[in-house]
């Protein structure tokens, strides 16, 4: 009976959404979004503060926001404050996992699974590759798809690989905590420095350089690397908490 009610409710809600979106003149049909009317038009043209004319990859310099990847420009520059909040969400949930799963844990979780020689060696080789990829993705976030969040997660994934390859491996949790704390504090401090020098929180205080070059976009690569480090250490902490248990 309860299931039936839930079915009716969800069917009704789904029908309501679809029908009212279909009959809605203001809501654009799939694939027909008019970006010219939206705020993102200015993000693409980079003309929020002043009009730079045509933006040419590899030539135009001194833009208000330098990344060639427009999504990065939004995440780490135009709406950087959201990203700070999002990093905080991950921070507080990692902290919550540590609080909930106890702090006095000594022993690795026993899994009915023992890695053989190939797995051990292979994982250690892969560890390096994945770690390098993670760092590369974090650093090149303003040029190519990716950035701090997938980069940081890849760093954490490489740690996970070490956990799986070695029965007794435990990451140095204390070190991760320090890294996490420093990366987070630096993010906020960059914001406050921007407030003091540039007049508003998280303002881009460095020269944005030529669009498309590695050393461009001012503070954005720095912020993205910090995010990568922070996300990586937080998720590694979470994984460590899930993989240990109380015991001698």
């Amino acid at each position, binding site marked *: 009976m309860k299931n039936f009610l839930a079915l009716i409710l969800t069917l009704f*809600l789904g029908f309501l959404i679809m029908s009212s979106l279909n009959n809605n003149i203001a809501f654009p049909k799939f694939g027909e979004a008019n*970006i010219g009317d939206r705020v993102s038009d200015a993000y693409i043209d980079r003309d929020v503060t002043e009009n730079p004319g045509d933006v040419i990859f590899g030539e135009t310099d001194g833009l208000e926001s330098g990344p060639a990847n427009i999504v990065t420009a939004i995440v780490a520059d135009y709406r950087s404050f959201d990203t700070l909040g999002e990093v905080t969400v991950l921070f507080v949930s990692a902290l919550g996992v540590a609080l*909930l799963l106890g702090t006095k844990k000594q022993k690795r979780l026993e899994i009915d699974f023992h890695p053989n020689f190939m797995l051990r060696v292979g994982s250690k080789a892969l560890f390096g590759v994945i770690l390098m990829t993670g760092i590369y993705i974090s650093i090149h976030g303003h040029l190519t798809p990716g950035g701090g969040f997938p980069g940081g997660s890849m760093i954490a994934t490489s740690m996970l690989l070490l956990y799986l390859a070695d029965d007794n491996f435990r990451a140095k949790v204390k070190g991760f905590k320090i890294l996490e704390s420093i990366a987070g504090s630096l993010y906020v401090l960059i914001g406050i420095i921007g407030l003091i020098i540039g007049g508003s929180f998280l303002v881009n205080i460095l020269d944005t350089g030529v669009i498309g070059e590695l050393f461009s976009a001012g503070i954005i690569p720095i912020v993205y690397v910090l995010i990568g480090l922070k996300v990586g250490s937080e998720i590694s902490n979470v994984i460590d908490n899930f993989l240990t248990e109380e015991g001698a």
Partner: protein
Amino acid sequence: MLQYAAIVLIMLGLYGILTQRNVIKIILSLNIMEIGLNLFIISVGYVTDGIAPIMTTNHNTNSLIYVDPLPQALVLTAIVIGVGTTALGLAIAKNIYSKYGTFELDEMEEE
């Protein structure tokens, strides 16, 4: 098409949350709902024949049509928030298990 699939996914997730009585299954349904929501958000910014919002040497004018980059930035935020909630939910689930010895909400004794 994908937009309708996204709405159906949101509703499927909601149905799962309302009917399932297993803690893990409820978190799983939350994840399904979030994936549906993310697809929906991206679909709102999709433009037919638009290109991915990254400037490269091949595309050098402002006259090109990009898909809307703002929903993509929002989804990045939503995905990370989602993983935070999932980790927290699973940690609580683990605690529930060590207290009651089961994941089924109906088998737990009322206090």
